[in-house]
């Protein structure tokens, strides 16, 4: 049993021969048992990364290991919900759940799937084509959860849901993580949506990994500082973003030692951290998750 859910080294994906690079030189490690927020602007490569991990796309460069094996071999242990929540429109909810049971013999959990569907007051005889976006999401999640996966990959799972359903389904996902130790990766371009539920962050921007690690570690590694624009320089520290307003300078830095005198420090929020990195693509990459070799040696 591997303690690593996803590990990427030099991972790249290009579409078409001369097509654009969706992902480039991505390296990160996601330990098992984490709930990971995959954050980035639209078109950053989030969906591509999830599809690669689900074994639905082949990488053009680099290596990707999922649950200690190749994505294709891990597929039976991985649940995946695509962004547009594809389902067969001609089937009823009951039929699509039976599909899950038929196609995942031996590890299908009908109660888990039905629990998710029941939360939405959906009639089992309703055809998929007559469902709303949020109801489709619910059925797609039911299919993915019924499979009792070790790793759950969710592409924009909350986008179509009303606040009530969002809270309820997020609760269901968290319960899954709490009970079975399921590793969950969910993408969103709204950080606030995931902040309370996730303990791990993967920030993707421009096809590259910008930040990767435990959210607490990432927050602890950064400080928001304010001081006079003419005070001591911050050169000794990695500056992610700095802004001068009048005589005051505000910056988000990764301190490399004690701060020079005259600076007031405060802890940044996750949203501030993410936005600062997205606004400044040249900011240095930070990966705080320990490499697999270190962990296995420990």
């Amino acid at each position, binding site marked *: 049993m591997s303690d690593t859910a996803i590990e990427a080294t030099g991972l790249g994906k290009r579409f078409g021969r001369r097509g654009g690079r969706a992902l480039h030189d991505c390296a990160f490690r996601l330990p098992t048992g984490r*709930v990971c927020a995959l954050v980035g602007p639209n078109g950053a490569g989030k969906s591509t990364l999830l599809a690669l991990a689900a074994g639905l796309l082949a990488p053009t460069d680099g290596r990707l290991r999922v649950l200690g094996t190749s994505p294709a071999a891990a597929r039976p242990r991985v649940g995946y919900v695509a962004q547009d929540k594809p389902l067969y429109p001609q089937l009823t909810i009951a039929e699509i759940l039976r599909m899950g049971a038929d196609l995942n013999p031996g590890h299908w959990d009908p109660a888990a799937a039905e629990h998710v569907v029941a939360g939405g007051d959906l009639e089992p005889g309703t055809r998929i084509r007559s469902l709303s976006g949020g109801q489709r999401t619910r059925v797609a999640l039911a299919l993915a959860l019924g499979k009792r996966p070790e790793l759950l990959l969710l592409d924009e799972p909350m986008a179509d849901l009303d606040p009530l359903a969002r*809270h*309820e389904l*997020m*609760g*269901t*996902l*968290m*319960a899954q*993580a*709490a*009970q079975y130790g399921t590793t969950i990766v969910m993408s969103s371009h709204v950080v606030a949506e995931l*902040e*309370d*539920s*996730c*303990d791990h962050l993967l920030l993707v921007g421009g096809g590259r990994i910008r930040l990767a690690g435990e959210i607490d570690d990432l927050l602890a590694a950064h400080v928001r500082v304010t001081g006079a624009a003419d005070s001591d320089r911050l050169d000794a520290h990695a500056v992610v973003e700095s802004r001068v307003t009048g005589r005051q300078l505000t910056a988000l830095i990764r301190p490399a030692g004690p701060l020079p005198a005259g600076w007031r420090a405060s802890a940044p929020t996750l949203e501030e951290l993410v936005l600062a990195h997205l606004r400044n693509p040249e900011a240095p990459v930070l990966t705080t998750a320990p490499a697999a070799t270190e962990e296995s040696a420990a």
Partner: protein
Amino acid sequence: MVEYRIDRHSGVATYVQIVQQTKQALRMGLLEPGDRLPTAREVVEATAINPNTVLKAYRELEREGLVEARRGLGTFVRRSLGTTPVDPSLRTELVAWAERARRAGLERDDVAALFTAVLDTHFQGERS
């Protein structure tokens, strides 16, 4: 049984909110020694927060000796937070002080700010 309510905009870390609310329940006698705290699954299902946050809060409570985890059974309350009986004269003095503050023209917010500042100086290191 205690039910946690997470306030996202309070600025207080989520795990701290769970610790605080547990202690509050202990003080108010809603939780007594031997009671089982809700499981992490139950808490996260209702609040949609990360399971590790709940576990972190429970570890904090365990470190303080308030609860203990029994493998496979759950987390149980070990001791209650016996509230020290308040000396009635303390309250009388505070009431008198508050009346003086109002006569001096202080508004409710001014009083609150002043009170918090004093609390911060005298109860440093303790979280409410």
